[in-house]
């Protein structure tokens, strides 16, 4: 099962990683915004990892993460909209998959402030990437609502997969998922590297 999950995520990475880097053509309005985190494997993997890690850390991290994340992400989007340059933000987004995936794979339990800090930094990066992709024609706020909602639902997906933690074997599956996410992040990072060089 663990191997199947890994394979599925790798396949998804193969199709998605190249599609995301520099993408921003997902359309406008709510659907465009909603698809932005989902169609980029780097966003998708990292957001599911946030949910998985929250499930591993349990309360209070479990509910602090999904409450704090959207606001920090919005701060990144806000500064992205204002044109604050953030060089190589796509690389940072890809690396967030590697780091968060590794945290899940190793079932790391740092102090709460450190876990929140790690997630906050990456939330900011993801928000910046989404913010610079907001199309100003049409309804830009709907686009914003779309990626906020999609990100939240991806956290929820991670938290729900985290229900597997009730069983010892399930905990292993979750950690295997972390490995797959870290690999997907590495894949996206490699794609970014190939694109830049």
């Amino acid at each position: 099962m663990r191997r199947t999950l890994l394979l599925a995520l790798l396949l998804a990475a193969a199709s998605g990683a190249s599609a995301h880097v520099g993408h921003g053509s997902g359309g406008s309005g709510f659907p465009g915004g909603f698809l932005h985190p989902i169609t980029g494997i780097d966003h998708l993997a990292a957001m599911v990892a946030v949910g998985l890690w929250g499930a591993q850390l349990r309360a209070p991290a479990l509910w602090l993460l999904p409450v704090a994340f959207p606001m920090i992400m919005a701060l990144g989007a806000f500064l992205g909209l204002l044109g604050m340059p953030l060089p190589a933000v796509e690389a940072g987004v890809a690396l967030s998959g590697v780091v968060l995936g590794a945290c899940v794979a190793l079932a790391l339990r740092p102090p709460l402030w450190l876990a929140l800090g790690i997630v906050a930094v990456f939330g900011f990066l993801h928000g910046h990437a989404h913010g610079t992709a907001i199309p100003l024609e049409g309804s830009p706020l709907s686009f914003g609502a779309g990626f906020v909602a999609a990100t939240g639902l991806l956290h929820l997906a991670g938290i729900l997969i985290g229900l597997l933690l009730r069983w010892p074997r399930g905990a292993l599956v979750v950690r295997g998922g972390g490995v797959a996410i870290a690999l997907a992040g590495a894949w996206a990072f490699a794609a970014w590297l190939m694109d830049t060089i």
Partner: protein
Amino acid sequence: MLAPALHILTEPDHLVACFAIGLLAGQRAARRETLSLLAAFVGAFLVAFCVAAVGQFGDAFESLDAFAAAATLIAAGLLVAVPRLSPAPLAMAVALATGVVHGFANGLAAATLLAVAGAVPAAALIAIAGYGLTALLKAPWGLIAVRVLGSWTAAMGLILVGIALR
């Protein structure tokens, strides 16, 4: 009558702000507080709508509109996300301000005062829908889900400020 109701339902900032006030009201422990918050919001919306629809303001407020709407989204969203922040008077102030801002904006967009018959019930219904959601979610995870929705609301407000500054 239909068009002004649709205006609220299709503009994301109006829709989400009204909904967030419902969430805020539903989080109050005392039933009286819930009712007075909802009533204050709808009353403020009604009065501001009429003032804006009757007065000849032109586009004097156009540049402020987005910032005011964003401020209500951030304020209402934060209070819902972090209930510890919201003593009753503050919640009441935010409900009133949200009613005034969105009532005024919708009133400016209305062609006639008659539009009030469509806009006010629409605003009230959206707020009641938000309140209804909190009533459904009495489970421990339900309370968290409501706070998460508040956080999404505040996030949208912040993004709206960014869009308006562009």
